[in-house]
């Protein structure tokens, strides 16, 4: 049974993970997409504001996306997302981190332009095993309403 708009009332939705992050994957992503010394080189990273080797913020976002997919998006009648209202990188992502993801629904409303869908705005918070917040994101996704899924099946 796919999750639909009705399954996302405002409030805490769930906690997902842990997701273990390896040094190898941090380096591989940084080499491909974000080859700054603070993401690739231990010594340069120590001298940087991050004070040690840290993963790319875009890698953290991508891992967060995968955690959302594995946690609930993969079984949600989602039509995609128009964007991200606000994203903060608050603490560095380190090799060996075990990440957990908390999802809160901050707003859920029926779409005016496409009434068979709703817009669910999430707040996602990623923490490491010590409970430090690494990343906070507020982002909407478009989700089908139950009647929308039903009419599609009937059609």
């Amino acid at each position, binding site marked *: 049974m796919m999750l639909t708009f009705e399954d996302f009332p405002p409030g805490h939705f769930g906690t997902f993970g842990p997701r273990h992050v390896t040094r190898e994957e941090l380096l591989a*992503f940084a080499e*491909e*997409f*974000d*080859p*700054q*010394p*603070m993401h690739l080189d231990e010594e340069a990273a120590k001298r*940087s*504001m*991050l004070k040690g080797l*840290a993963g*790319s*913020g*875009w*890698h953290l*976002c*991508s*891992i967060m*996306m*995968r955690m959302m*997919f594995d946690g609930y*998006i*993969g079984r949600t009648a*989602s*039509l*995609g*997302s*128009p*964007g*991200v*209202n*606000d*994203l*903060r*990188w*608050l603490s*560095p992502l380190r090799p060996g981190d075990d990440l957990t993801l908390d999802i809160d629904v901050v707003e859920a409303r029926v779409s005016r332009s496409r009434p068979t869908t709703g817009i669910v705005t999430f707040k996602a918070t990623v923490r490491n095993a010590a409970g430090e917040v690494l990343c906070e994101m507020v982002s909407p996704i*478009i989700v089908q309403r139950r009647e929308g899924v039903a009419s599609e099946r009937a059609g």
Partner: protein
Amino acid sequence: MRFFEDLKIGQRRELGSFTFTAEAIKKFARQFDPQRFHLDEEEGRKSLFGGLAASGWHIGSACMKLLVTDGQRQAKEAAARGETVATWGPSPGFRELRWIKPVLAGDTISFASEIESLRASEKRPEWGILQARNTGTNQRGELVFSFLSTAFVPRRDGGARGD
């Protein structure tokens, strides 16, 4: 890379382009965003995207790649002129990210970055804070992607001004 003092509101840099092949779209999606419309052409056609579509995080990561490459190009040029090269700090985040139109297999996106605001950091006098609007435009000239990023940029004199 340039120092905070060298930057002006409205300065724009063309960062180059990135082609999203079907292969690259699926590879990124398998790893990070395996939603059906990012993995399969037919599923993409049936979706709101109308074709095999790149994950939004793939688009953001490609933009980051070109921002870093452009920074390295500037650093090389500054070093060749015998200037001190500034090392930029990390970014505390971004706002107003919009995936405006789908990026489909075969699309080539040209990215650009334009400075919107500059201010001194209150907590870290050796750093300035820059906000830049980064955008992606497809081969038909349609704006497909935009976000307002924030970054720490070093002050030329380390912020230790005598005056």
